[in-house]
């Protein structure tokens, strides 16, 4: 009863805030949602790995970077559009992720968590340096007309292409929910994530499931790499900031809470754009990220102590 009431209050407050923003500063909501879509679409695969395989993959952003370079190379070699490279890149990144998992991460799963962190951190450096050696630190960008698509509403003109990330984030969220709750493999993955020993007793191949989930997450990151190429220039360090941002969004949402990542991303995206919309607070947008994390984690700790 109390939970329902609290949920209703949060929902009412969110709706009121949304209406206020639409009337007062509609661009805050528009750009906030677009930023949220990008954050969530990158963070959700990391949430999947953390929730089921229980490793913090510090090379998450670098996997996206490698995928973006793979997509770029394919686009340049075949003269194709990055959108057409999404599925091939996802497949290649899934295979690459599976191989990396079997060769390295799997070996560290039984070790202390620090070993996993160091291992994935090492992978991140290895990926970045390898790409640096092959492509140098020069940036690459494919100019595309459709990314400048825009819409006019009254006096406001805004870009619409970045809404594609919102769509991807929603598809990822509900697609993964469906996969984890409605399919046999997904249910097995969920069981492995909740209790690996119990899952093994009932006959689920735990390491095969881990490998599959990791490959699936890398496929989603790979698809995002190709899509990211439409909007951004790429260079060896392009993925690195996304690792930390994704990890923090997962920390805000709570491990294993995929829809929560979407919510946390919306909160972050709108808050950042809200601060950027006003001259005195423009430079504070980067700080809001850390403030939100501290508030959420401290709040959760206090709540835990109370209960």
């Amino acid at each position, binding site marked *: 009863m109390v939970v329902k009431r609290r949920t209703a209050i949060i929902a009412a407050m969110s709706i009121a805030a949304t209406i206020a923003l639409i009337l007062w500063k509609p*661009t805050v909501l528009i*750009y906030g949602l*677009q*930023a949220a879509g990008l954050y969530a679409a990158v963070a959700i695969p990391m949430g999947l790995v953390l929730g089921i395989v229980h490793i913090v993959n510090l090379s998450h952003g670098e996997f996206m970077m490698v995928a973006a370079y793979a997509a770029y190379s394919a686009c340049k070699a075949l003269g194709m559009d990055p959108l057409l490279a999404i599925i091939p890149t996802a497949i290649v990144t899934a295979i690459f992720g599976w191989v990396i998992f079997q060769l390295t991460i799997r070996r560290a799963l039984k070790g202390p968590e620090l070993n996993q962190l160091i291992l994935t951190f090492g992978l991140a450096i290895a990926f970045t340096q390898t790409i*640096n050696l092959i492509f*140098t*630190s*020069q*940036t*690459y*960008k494919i*100019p*595309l*007309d459709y*990314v*400048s*698509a*825009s819409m006019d509403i009254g006096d406001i*003109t*805004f*870009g*619409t*292409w970045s809404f594609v990330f919102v769509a991807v984030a929603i598809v990822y969220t509900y697609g993964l929910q469906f996969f984890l709750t409605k399919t046999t493999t997904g249910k097995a993955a969920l069981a492995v994530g909740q209790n690996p020993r119990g899952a093994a007793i009932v006959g689920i191949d735990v390491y095969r499931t881990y490998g599959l989930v990791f490959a699936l997450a890398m496929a989603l990151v790979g698809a995002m790499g190709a899509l990211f190429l439409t*909007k*951004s*220039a790429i*260079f060896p*360090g*392009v993925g*690195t*900031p*996304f690792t930390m*941002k994704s990890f923090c969004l997962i920390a805000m949402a709570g491990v294993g809470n995929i829809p929560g990542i979407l919510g946390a991303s919306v909160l972050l995206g709108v808050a950042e*754009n809200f601060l*950027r*919309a006003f*001259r005195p607070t*423009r*430079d504070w*947008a*980067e700080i809001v990220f850390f403030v939100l994390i501290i508030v959420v984690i401290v709040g959760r700790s206090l709540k835990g102590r109370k209960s």
Partner: protein
Amino acid sequence: MKRMMLALAVFALIAGSAYAQGTIKIGGIWTLADITGKQGSAAAQMAVDEINAAGGILGKKLDLIVVDDEGKADKAAAAVEKLATVDKVDVFMGGMGSGAELGKIPAFKKYGKVVMSTGAAGSVTVEKALGPSPESDFYFHIHPWDYNQGASYAEGWDAIQKQYPNIKIRKIFLAYEEGAFGKSSWDATKILFGGDNRYIVDGASFKSALFGGGDYTSVLEAAKAFKPDLFLWAGYDADALPLLEQSKAMKFSPGIYLGAPPGWPIGFGSSKLSRNVMLYGMWSPAMNDNNPASAKFYKNYVAKYKEEPATYFAPLSYSAVYILADGIKAAGTTETAPLIKALEATKYASPLGETITFKPSNIIKHQGITRQKILQWQGGFQEVIWPFEAATAEPVYPFPAWK
């Protein structure tokens, strides 16, 4: 005893002859993963090869030993130590980022060898750390300091408005990346353009794509609301195309759209979005038509490396080697004091379109180039708009509205 004297005489003869046929070692330090360092070091090597093919200097060959500083101050300092103690170089050259250059200065001062610096615009950091003459006299800074660049932009825009009365600039908006580079650009812009109230200056920061940003919507909203005559952005090459794409999406087309990144992304000129974007720089292949030194450099570079020099750091490093070689030739030695004296008399007609000489700057005694150029992307090429004596095209104004 006689035998010993004979052996010593033979040894002295051999050693003397080896010294005479030896090499003059130049220690070059660049950030090799970056296009500026990659092409800067390649252009310096090309100059060394040309000089050696023509017989070398003082009967000796030049030997360029290149070390990568990875853009980091600690690696740059270690590079100086290695070149001075292991390779025992005679002179130093290279450099791009001010941060890495700052790391080299204590070691440069320790060894006191002549340095021909091709980068580092940060006056507050690098020039201040070098200190005044005579302690910094070994340091020859060819690249302009940030205040030199700012002053030349102000001079350039004044001259352009005088020459082309249809170009009128009253309001300037600077979108600057939130790091040290962008912030120093913002501080300089406020002083140079906003100081005497001739211009109304506003600005806003953005997080560069290079550091995990890439969303320019808020800064473009602020710029659009300000309605600037000149929109200038100070960021990195990673920001160039996404910023234009978002400007197009928001239908933001100021009278002048100008970018000031250290380098442009590969293929930028082939993008439709590059049309009529202005830029600051020192050199462009378009100068080949009216500058024989530029044409010769360009032709040789393309023939040797099968790629175009993409930034001005290539002709700048090429020039640095020739200036050093001419100085050593005039001094007859690589000893610091006579070489400094010889370099002070430098008059080198560079491929950059100007004759390089050394004059005192705000702090140091040996400053080379002080003027930047204003260029514009036209038909996929960088055309020089100002200084008028080096101009290769007329400016296209205003920046056309997006279609």
